[in-house]
């Protein structure tokens, strides 16, 4: 569902993403790991059509995000680390706005909106202005709105900011269930290695714009010839050793 071929993005003399190749099949939960400035967010911005690549291509569901941006974005749901919500709209109004933005028809929309608001526990405040929501509620509304148009690919950028353990578990479970039951592809960028270890089918570690390794947790551990007591954190730190970008 996600194909990235020889993707390079340069900012002046700095190469943020360097000849990245990655393919994520339908229904896979893929975690993108890397230190700050590794190129994760730049890759996501290219995939969401916010940034143009210097060279190479990126496609969602077979649609090139540069040549067929609208078709590609119809399949895409995106949850940034700091979600944007219109503060002077109510939660329910925001959901209808998102539906309109995705050109959704009226049929069944009301039920879908109510169901998602209920699933993400925002139904109690649905008619309050978003400006009165706590950060946690705003994050949940962002999740609810992301799934309204039934995306086949969901890109999540560090979604755990501001969520308590109970909500983190709820979101993890929801995303995982989407991949297993509905074949949704999830690309999640995170620094929380334990969560990646727990939910990811495959993990990709990126540093200084280069994809260092891709595979399941077990495969990555093998690649680095780790000891039996090693954790993903040990392997991650070993792989990105001395290369952290300030």
């Amino acid at each position, binding site marked *: 569902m996600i194909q990235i071929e020889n993707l390079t993005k340069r900012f*002046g003399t700095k190469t943020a993403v360097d000849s990245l190749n990655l393919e994520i099949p339908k229904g896979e939960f893929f975690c993108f790991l890397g230190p700050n400035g590794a190129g994760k967010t730049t890759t996501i911005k290219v995939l969401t059509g916010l940034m143009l690549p210097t060279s190479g291509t990126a496609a969602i569901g077979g649609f090139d995000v540069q040549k067929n941006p609208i078709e590609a974005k119809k399949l895409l749901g995106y949850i940034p680390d700091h979600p944007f919500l*219109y503060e002077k709209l109510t939660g329910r109004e925001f959901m209808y706005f998102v539906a309109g933005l995705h050109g959704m028809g009226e049929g069944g929309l009301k039920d879908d909106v109510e169901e998602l608001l209920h699933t993400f526990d925002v139904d109690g405040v649905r008619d309050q202005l978003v400006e009165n929501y706590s950060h946690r509620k705003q994050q949940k509304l962002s999740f609810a709105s992301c799934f309204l148009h039934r995306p086949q690919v969901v890109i999540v950028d560090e979604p755990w900011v501001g969520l308590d353990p109970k909500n983190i578990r709820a979101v993890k479970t929801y995303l995982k269930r989407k991949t297993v039951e509905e074949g949704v592809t999830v690309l999640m960028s995170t620094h929380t290695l334990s969560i990646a270890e727990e939910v990811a089918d495959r993990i990709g570690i990126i540093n200084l714009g280069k994809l260092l390794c891709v595979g399941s947790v077990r495969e990555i551990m093998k690649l680095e010839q780790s000891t039996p007591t090693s954790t993903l954190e040990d392997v991650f730190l070993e792989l990105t050793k001395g290369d952290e970008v300030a």
Partner: protein
Amino acid sequence: MNPLRAIFRAKSRMGAHSLRALRHESWLKIGVVGSAAIVLWFGALYGFAAGFMWLRLRGFAGEPPEDAISLAEILMARLLAIFALALFFMLIFSNVLIAFSTMYKAREVQYLLQAPIGLRTYFLARFTECVSFSSWASAYLGTPLILAYGYTTSAHWGYYLAAILFYVPFVAIPAAAGSVITFLLVRIFPRLPRVMLFALAAVVLVVLFVYLRQNFSVERLAESSIERLILQTTVQTQSPLLPSTWAAEGVLAAADANYSKAGFLWLLLSANALMAIWLAAEAAHWLFLPGFSAILGADRTSRHPIGRGILGRLELLLAFVRNAIRALVVKDIRLFWRDPIQWTQFFIFFGLMAAYIANLGNRSMEMASPAYRSWVASLNSGACALILASLTSRFIYPLISLEGFRFWILGLAPITRRQLVWQKFWLSVATTAPFTVGISFLSCVLLNVSTLHFSVTMYTIVCANFSLAGLAVGLGSLYPNFEEDNPARIVSGMGGTLNFLLSVAYITLVLGSQMMVLQWHAFGGYGAERYFTPTLAVVLVVNTLLSIAATFIPMRVGLRNLVATEF
């Protein structure tokens, strides 16, 4: 649902919610802001109507009465055309700035761009916002002019309807032009070397200067009557290729009930507006994303090593100030300097004033009477004080509020709140006084005013620096807004508006009274010197007391409030 419709619907819902939220605002704030807006609007209406009446009654020197009236009407119509032309170019300029913030920098931009909407749709949604943002102020200030003209010339009712109908396509054209310029600037300019940018800016400034010099030089003003000069100069503003000409002529045709001409010009303007919007949408489709992508990835990292440049050496330069206070002063100056929006306004205001003052050493001014020179010097001081009031309201008033998020640092520092408030006060006086006192000094010297006038002016402008700083810092402490990090929003609150209105009232009272006494004396109104001296003494004493009150009362009340505030 259509995405464009969804965006418009969401925006209208947000507008409705914002209006509804006014119920929770302070009635005092709404009353103060609303009254000020109404007074300003009616003041402008009265001023324009009086000006048009004066033109009609005065006519032209040396012309037969019937010719004088027709010339006056031509001049009034020409003034309307100049207003349309000036508005047209001002709207292009403001739309460049608004388009950049609305289409590239606003928080919702990334959200909208990752949605499955085309760039043309995105443009149309944001363009509508640009038009509304850029046109409301011109509508607010333009309506008194339009109404005054209609009233003075007893225009046909169609004139008022035409003014509304012409306004919509008229503001759309500069908005489209501004958007295209923004797309091109964002696409091209980041790639140009800095030297090239400075060279281009210099060429634009030189061309503008030469044009103004040729058309509005002081010699020409002195040689010819102002009405003749305006008529000669404004011939160039009547080009049939300019949308402002179509709008002005169309509205004037409606005033004469010439609806076929008005209708044709409206269709011409509307067709061009639609064409401009279509072209801008195409420009968005081709130019927007590469520019946006470049901005998103631009490396804006800048380094400011201690010990380099003036900012890096501030600590050393202010070594005589006590440690904690010095740290606050250095921090305030650095923050001010590193925010170009702040210092560009500061230098534009005072730069324009200084350029104007520097041009006062003209021969034709030398020939003017002492009374006239005294009058100009007084007006210059008034203008300088008004600039000072706008700057203290804009920059000094929010200083205390901006400390809100950092009060935990200040609370732990060995500094009292009294010292904090007085630090802001002295910072204000120290930064604004060199400019205001310098400009007033230059004005008096170049106009060769009397020693008495010079002394009184300098005394008053020094007092104004203290008083306006006291008002801004004191009211800023009395009405702090610790929830807000944006100075513009802090200023637009009730306290900010009150501060500006009180500052203007202070200037009107102090400079107005002083100006009246000095001018009355310059025109020989007192008859005997013995009446003038005590009158001036009384005015100076009252003004001094007023200045002391304006400095210390707000500071005292504000400080008391700040000391009692819990964080």
